[in-house]
């Protein structure tokens, strides 16, 4: 499965049981901790900085919009305020400059209106003069507004009280939206005269329409009762009630957040225009204001996601690579430790065997010579030569001495062969030697051993000790696998093709399951765990075979038996060290 290939070698290693190595060899734990700690150290500052940047950028964007809006509100308010003040001042000047009787003269009034229209541009529509009684004394303009009586109207009272009046915008008799500015001029006799001008809202609307407002901005004027005084783009026509709450009074420019009936968030900037009933309002949709912020935000989020993915990927990759390398190195070290241990064990067994053999050889020789002498005396002196029983006893002693001698010689050979030496070897001979070690065991269990050595099998240049260990390991395994009365067959024959010798050792034992078959040469693979098996026997056999340049193959069927085939080359490959020395030389 492809997923399985991604799982590193150390992942399925069981937790070590020993207290001392619980943390040292727990690769999953090491991996988890290194991934966790590195991720935390790398990601926490990144996420923190990104969040701070996010907040700060958002605030910067918002304050930028707010200040821009406030600035536009203030500037527009000033322009509108100035427009009204200018017109009021003009009227004020006219009533002060002209005697009452001049103003009541329609011709003079028409002249003044003409002068006003020419010097102030748009705005003035008509002029009327109203006397103390509230009756209109004179009128010039497009509309027939003569002999009107205003004394009942509230605005008249206001002008009388305050001396000046600016009206809301209204349709009036003319059905055209306009506003009225009126100023009062008191006379020495207590009477007064009011100059009243209608001003069209065209200049306001031009001013508001020409404002450059970002996105879906809307600029308009309302009166204090919440009635629209100019057309609005989104909030109704002139004289419609505004669909937004009327802002609280403030003498300065103010910004408030609101929500329109559609549920959209709005930013409202407003300013009460001094000495008038007007409130200038600029309404912007936050959604649009923040559009550029949303683009920036998307960039920030993308940056964070890509960085986190990249960092996590690198951390995971590096941690896995390093922990796996650690695991592989540990495994290798362990295997070589076991190899060394095995070699040491073999060496000390060898040394002990040799010293035992040496020590025994001398007394053995004496027994042999003494027994030989006894027999010689019997036979040469003819004293007991006819006594078959005595001769038989002496022969038995001599035979045992010979047998013991064979054993000690074999032990000495074994010990000597632990040192690596290359010599001419008859493989068949080595096989016989090895089987002599298990001869007794095989006899007891009635295991039938058949050894066939082909006369064509050549002698090879190899290491006798290693060959002995190889065969001994496999033969021991075969012996353990076969039941009492089973069979072990050994064939030694020339290898097909490349030369060399092949040794085939087969048994009719329990066999090896297919799933275990390609793992049996792995170090520490053992089915005899807990029964004294180290799982190293075949692994060592495998490396020994490779050391002498051979090949080992196994085939097996459960219940039928197992066959090991070892191909040995004619000569041993030069060892690494020798190669290096040669290369250096």
């Amino acid at each position, binding site marked *: 499965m492809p997923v399985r290939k991604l799982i590193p070698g150390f992942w399925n290693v069981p937790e070590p049981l020993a207290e001392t190595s619980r943390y040292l060899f727990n690769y999953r734990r090491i991996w988890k901790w290194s991934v966790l700690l590195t991720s935390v150290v790398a990601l926490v500052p990144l996420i923190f900085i990104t969040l701070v940047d996010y907040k700060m950028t958002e605030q910067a964007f918002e304050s930028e919009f707010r200040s821009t809006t406030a600035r536009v509100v203030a500037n527009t308010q000033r322009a509108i305020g100035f427009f009204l003040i200018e017109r009021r001042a003009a009227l004020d000047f006219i009533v002060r400059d002209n005697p009452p009787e001049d103003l009541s003269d329609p011709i003079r009034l028409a002249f003044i209106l003409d002068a006003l229209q020419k010097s102030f541009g748009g705005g003035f529509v008509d002029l009327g003069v109203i006397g103390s009684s509230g009756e209109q004394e004179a009128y010039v303009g497009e509309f027939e507004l003569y002999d009107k009586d205003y004394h009942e109207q509230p605005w008249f009272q206001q002008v009388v009280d305050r001396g000046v009046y600016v009206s809301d915008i209204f349709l009036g008799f003319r059905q055209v939206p306009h506003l009225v500015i009126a100023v009062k001029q008191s006379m020495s006799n207590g009477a007064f005269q009011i100059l009243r001008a209608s001003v069209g809202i065209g200049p306001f609307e031009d001013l508001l329409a020409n404002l450059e407002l970002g996105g879906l901005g809307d600029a308009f004027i309302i009166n204090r009762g919440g009635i629209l005084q100019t057309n609005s783009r989104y909030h109704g026509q002139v004289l419609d009630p505004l669909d937004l709450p009327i802002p609280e009074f403030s003498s300065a420019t103010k910004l408030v957040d609101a929500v329109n009936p559609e549920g959209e968030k709005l930013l409202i900037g407003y300013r009460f225009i001094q000495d008038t009933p007007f409130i200038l309002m600029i309404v912007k949709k936050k959604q649009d204001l923040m559009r550029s912020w949303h683009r920036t935000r998307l960039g920030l989020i993308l940056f964070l996601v890509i960085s986190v993915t990249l960092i996590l990927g690198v951390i995971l990759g590096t941690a896995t690579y390093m922990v796996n390398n650690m695991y592989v190195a540990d495994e290798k070290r362990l295997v070589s430790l076991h190899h060394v241990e095995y070699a040491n064990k073999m060496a000390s067994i060898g040394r002990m065997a040799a010293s035992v053999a*040496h020590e025994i*050889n*001398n007394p053995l020789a004496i027994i*042999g010579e003494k027994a030989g*002498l006894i027999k010689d005396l019997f036979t040469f002196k003819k004293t007991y030569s006819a006594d078959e029983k005595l001769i038989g006893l002496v022969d038995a002693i001599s035979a045992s001495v010979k047998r013991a*001698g064979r054993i000690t010689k074999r032990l*000495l050979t074994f010990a*000597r062969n632990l040192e690596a030496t290359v*010599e001419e070897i008859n493989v068949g001979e080595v096989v016989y030697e090895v089987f002599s070690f298990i001869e007794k065991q095989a006899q007891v269990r009635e295991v039938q051993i058949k050894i066939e050595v082909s006369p064509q099998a050549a002698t090879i240049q190899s290491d006798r000790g290693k060959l002995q260990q190889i065969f001994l390991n496999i033969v021991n395994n075969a012996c353990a696998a076969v039941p009492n009365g089973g069979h072990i067959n050994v064939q030694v024959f020339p290898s097909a093709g490349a030369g060399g010798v092949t040794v085939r050792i087969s048994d009719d034992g329990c066999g090896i399951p297919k799933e275990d078959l390609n793992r049996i040469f792995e170090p520490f693979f053992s089915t005899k765990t807990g029964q004294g098996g180290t799982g190293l026997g075949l692994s060592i056999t495998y490396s020994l075979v490779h050391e002498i340049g051979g090949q080992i193959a196994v085939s097996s069927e459960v219940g039928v038996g197992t066959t090991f085939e070892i191909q040995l080359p004619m000569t041993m490959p030069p060892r690494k060290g020798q190669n290096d020395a040669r290369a250096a030389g």
Partner: protein
Amino acid sequence: MRVLLVDDEVDLASALAERLDLRGIKADWVTTAHAALDKAEAVDYDLAILDVKMPKIGGLELRQRLHERHPRMKFIFVTGYGSEMDFNKVKCQEGETCYMVKPVDIEDLLKRMKDLLGQSGGDQ
């Protein structure tokens, strides 16, 4: 044929000498190298059977000294310390030296002796 037997084990040397005597071979035995050198001055031996490991002067050195004084003398080494020798060389070397590992079969020994001496006899 006169044979000199040198082995620090008295029992072994005496028994082997007696067995050789019984087979018609005149064999003297000593237990030290010094005794062997003295003995060799007195008697003209054809062959010496030497133990390799002996106190003070070992078999190999003794062979060297005997060979200097008696160049015609042949040698058979008998040792219990087989592994210190090269087993591939457990055959007669240079026509004058032989190695055997204890315990030695008397018939093998006789055969080796005959091989060594017969060879030299042929040369002369």
